[in-house]
């Protein structure tokens, strides 16, 4: 029995480009830089934050990334026209998520009252007791609570999961949703990711790692020195193609395949030759049943870090060969756990609109990166696009997306 085709029948996004998929598509098609300068004592020059004021969500008042996810969910459901047409037993949810947000207020609330008077340490037991009493914590730190909220709203009774694999999390969640439909365990999978690290401890995490650029993000550029932090969410409605067709839905794109791998190199650094990344790409193409030459464009994970970009460029060159490659991290910032889903949405926009996004910040190709970098957006009739996501800790995921009217799928 052949496995069912899977389409993306709805999309919702909240990014530095604005609220809504059309804002994201417009920004990427026109090459708009969505980052903004910030004035902070921290060594951070710019961020890519959502450019509108968001009201705290009643049920998640302390979790900004949850607000983003729930806004994206609403748009995705409406976009798919699927509200009221979901069968609970045949509906699945997979989300990728990141570390908890911690605001200065929460730092004060959680930490300072528990500093020992002589400053030699924390009263950890007292801290725990207070956390237990806190109306939010430890729920605040439960990664699956947004997934659970999605399940509650959708009444989903199919397979459910929360993926945490750093920057590969939401691409892996999309892969899980695809697999679930292909296996026949669900007809619809609501998938995606959400993250916001634009808070002191979030930014601090990357500052101390030396991963943030003090200037700007320049993927594949010889001057690159790190990334800018972004935030956002994207939710994709994956659906059996025949089901979407039967209800009169005009789907946006096909999800043709997915592949995952592990670098098995070091928990703290990517494999410098990109062998793990290459394996994920190979697996995704094999899963899609496509040869490398079918790929028209690659959305690179490329964050603008010195080692990661070279590793990915080598992986793309080795697996696909010469192919136009873009990275949207310079324009949208690095949205960490949400990156895979947001960038899958950018790929869908490009497939539908007939263009490739540019690579904001790129100017001078690093000769160690054997790729053709798309510097500015350009028109292109795309049939097949690969989107890469690679996580800290060495987890890799690649997705293959196709045009609805393409020969593949």
């Amino acid at each position, binding site marked *: 029995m052949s496995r069912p085709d899977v389409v993306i029948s709805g999309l919702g996004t909240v990014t530095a480009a604005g609220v809504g998929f059309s804002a994201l598509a417009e920004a990427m098609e026109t090459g708009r830089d969505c980052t903004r300068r910030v004035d902070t004592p921290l060594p951070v020059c710019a961020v890519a934050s959502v450019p509108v004021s968001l009201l705290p969500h009643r049920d998640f008042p302390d979790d900004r990334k949850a607000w983003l996810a729930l806004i994206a969910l609403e748009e995705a459901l409406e976009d798919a026209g699927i509200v009221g047409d979901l069968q609970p037993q045949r509906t699945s949810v997979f989300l990728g998520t990141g570390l*908890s947000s911690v605001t200065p207020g929460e730092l004060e609330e959680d930490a*300072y009252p528990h*500093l020992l008077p002589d400053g030699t340490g924390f009263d950890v037991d007292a801290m725990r007791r207070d956390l237990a009493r806190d109306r939010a914590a430890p729920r605040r730190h439960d990664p699956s609570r947004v997934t659970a909220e999605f399940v509650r709203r959708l009444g989903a009774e199919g397979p459910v*999961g929360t993926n945490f694999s750093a920057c590969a999390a939401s691409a892996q969640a999309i892969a899980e949703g695809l697999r679930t439909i292909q296996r026949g365990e669900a007809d619809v999978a609501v998938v995606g990711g959400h993250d916001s690290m634009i808070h002191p401890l979030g930014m601090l995490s990357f500052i101390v790692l030396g991963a943030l650029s003090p200037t700007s993000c320049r993927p594949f550029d010889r001057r690159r020195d790190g990334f800018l932090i972004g935030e956002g969410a994207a939710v994709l409605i994956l659906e059996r193609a025949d089901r979407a067709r039967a209800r009169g839905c005009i789907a946006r794109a096909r999800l043709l395949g997915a592949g995952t791998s592990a670098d098995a190199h070091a928990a703290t650094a990517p494999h410098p030759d990109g062998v793990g990344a290459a394996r994920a790409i190979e697996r995704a193409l094999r899963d899609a049943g496509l040869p490398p030459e079918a790929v028209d464009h690659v959305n690179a994970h490329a964050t603008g870090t010195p080692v990661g970009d070279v590793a990915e460029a080598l992986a793309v060159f080795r697996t696909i060969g010469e192919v136009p490659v873009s990275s949207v991290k310079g324009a949208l910032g690095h949205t960490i756990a949400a990156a895979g889903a947001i960038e899958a949405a950018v790929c869908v926009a490009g497939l539908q609109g007939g263009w490739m996004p540019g690579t904001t910040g790129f100017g001078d190709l690093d000769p160690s990166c054997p790729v053709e970098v798309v510097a500015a957006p350009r028109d292109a009739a795309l049939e097949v696009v690969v989107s890469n996501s690679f996580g800290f800790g060495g987890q890799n995921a690649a997705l293959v997306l196709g045009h609805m009217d393409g020969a593949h799928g």
Partner: protein
Amino acid sequence: MADLRSVRVAGIGLLCPAGIGAQGMGGGVPGPVPGFRARDHVADRKSLKLMTTAVRLGVAAIQLALGEDPGWTEVPPDRRGLFVGASPQPGDPEDLRPALEAALGEEGRFDMGRFAREGYPLIHPLWLVRGLSNNIIGFASAIHDLQGVNMNYCDGVDGGRSALREGALAIAEDRADLVLAGGADAWAGAESLLGGRPCGDGAAFILLRPGTPCIREELEALIDREPPEKLGFLGSATWPVALARTWLGRDRAT
């Protein structure tokens, strides 16, 4: 779907409040794993410093499971998968204390300026790394060259269940020839966070290979029940530990 392959158990690594390995099948009380010394299982001291208790337990359980199947090294690295249920690793407040102390401003409030000037340089560069939920995959894949399909589920008790189920399916669907599926968590001492509920530390990984007798149906039946809590709340390790105890007990009986 194409025909599914049979999936057999080739090894079990268990650490729980009842003990390590076969000792873990016995009775026990909620709490830490008795006799657990991470150095007995993880040779690389540098890595050990970056691992929380849960990650150490998980890496040890994987080591124990692989040790039961001498033939595992013959499986090509890209056919070795890893499916994990895990929680975010709670950082040690002490890691941040010097920085937070330096950032203490007027009236005991957080002062961003002080934090930027004097606080953050006091934090270890790999502070973030210790907090990642996917560290079991990061470390174990590097130690054992597990390059294949993988997933890290962060769904509390359900995380370990998803890992077991998906790991078995990865073998059945011919996406891997060796899978380590399980979970690890460390809740001992965190009872106050759970309203006084007894808590424990634990980890269990099942080494799965193609072959018979096929355990998929039994696995589905076992993980479809109410989670046992005899050894306390074990978070993501709940189901893997329960399954490991069941299967180890059965093996001993036969």
